[in-house]
């Protein structure tokens, strides 16, 4: 049976992890490689690295980091954050990333999705969507959620699927940071509408939130950052809990 995936997201700035505590055995919580290795050992099913560096030197640093990550870890990983052109995609895929995620750049230039799918295959094209419930409608936001767009989420997801996206990473801005649970209704609506996997993000605060996500929606994966970084919910504990609750989960 296909398992539900648990995905920690690591924010990267200038080649370093932004948040993160010192796990036992980790000398440097700012070292993305050490943190990634720890997550792999803890049973993470996949990793997402989100680069939030704003400098022009960004791509070079990122490509070096991706090369090191690929050398060290043996599970799939996605790289996102400021992937604007097919050349950006090519450089991180060639460095060893399994997937790239595009967000604002895909809204600005939807053709990028098709270019990625054609050149590297749909499986490596994750479209990240930041969505917010505004005046009775789920809308798409870009630039880290700072800018509203006229796109309705349920129309945009259909469009990205048609353009060649292999997966959707859906973050509810209403839920993100609240630790009050995932946005179940939009997650299910999107999962119902598209035939590609949907990763739910935003709002995870307890183990029960993951159980509810997987029991009430068709989401293929749950993504979270702070609860894993700060050790609030250790991944082995989360997976043991989900397993006991009869959720299909990979057990290591």
């Amino acid at each position, binding site marked *: *049976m*296909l*398992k*539900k*995936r648990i995905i920690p997201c690591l924010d990267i700035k200038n080649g370093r992890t932004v948040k993160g505590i010192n796990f036992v055995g980790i000398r440097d919580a700012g070292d993305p490689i050490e943190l990634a290795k720890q997550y*792999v050992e803890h049973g993470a*099913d*996949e990793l997402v690295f989100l680069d939030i560096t704003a400098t022009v030197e960004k791509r070079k640093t990122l490509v070096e980091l991706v090369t090191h990550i*690929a*050398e060290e870890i*043996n*599970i*799939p990983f996605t790289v996102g954050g400021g992937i604007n052109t097919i050349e950006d995609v090519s450089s991180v*895929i*060639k*460095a*060893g990333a*399994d997937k790239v995620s595009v967000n604002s750049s895909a809204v600005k230039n939807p053709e990028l999705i098709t270019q990625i799918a054609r050149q*590297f*295959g*749909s*499986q*490596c094209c994750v479209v990240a969507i930041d969505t917010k419930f505004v005046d009775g409608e789920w809308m798409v936001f870009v630039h880290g959620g700072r800018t509203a767009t006229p796109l309705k989420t349920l129309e945009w997801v259909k469009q990205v699927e048609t353009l060649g996206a*292999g*997966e959707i990473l859906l973050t509810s801005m209403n839920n993100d940071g609240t630790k009050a649970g995932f946005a179940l209704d939009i997650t299910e609506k999107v999962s119902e509408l598209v*035939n*590609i*996997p949907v990763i739910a993000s935003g709002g995870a605060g307890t183990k029960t939130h993951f159980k509810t996500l997987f029991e009430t929606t*068709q989401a*293929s*994966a749950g993504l979270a950052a702070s609860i894993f970084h700060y050790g609030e919910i250790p991944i082995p504990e989360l997976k043991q809990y989900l397993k006991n609750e009869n959720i299909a989960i*990979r*057990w*290591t």
Partner: protein
Amino acid sequence: MIAIIKYNAGNIRSVQNALNRLGYESIITDDKTEILNASKVIFPGVGEASSAMKYLKDKGLDEVIRAIEKPMLGICLGLQLMCDYSEEGNTQCLGIFNTQVKKFPPNKKVPHMGWNSFSDVNGKLFHDIKTNEDMYYVHSYYAEKNEQTIATCNYILPFATAIQHNNFYATQFHPEKSADVGTQLLKNFLEL
């Protein structure tokens, strides 16, 4: 020396990284002599069947692959290209495995992406690997089960997730991305 066949498919670097972690030296090559002289050959790949097959033919690699006598391991698209035929791009493939590659019916999410278990395991490739362990998959096409199938995975329908014919082995999952259990499978192959 292990040869990793170089062609227009992604994910080749990941295989070399996995071999490095296991302490094996490898070369990524499309040179006939290097491939035929290697002690083991790995034929990886993520991509599209018809363009990959065209590339192999243009470079004469189709004949080279069929001529390999040492153990060879195809991975993902590699497995599919080793079959007779693929629906993807209506492609005549290498014809090493007598089975066909079809597109998943859209009854569930496609691609089949993530971790899945397998059953009906047969042979040395799966030494020390339990069937309740999961491997990482990402694919939209599958190989139909045949008598050369040495492991079966179930997603939408049962399909061939590992196939063997003589010295030719292949897996639909990505051992190089399947954590410790995938590493074990690669190790089993390298120790054949």
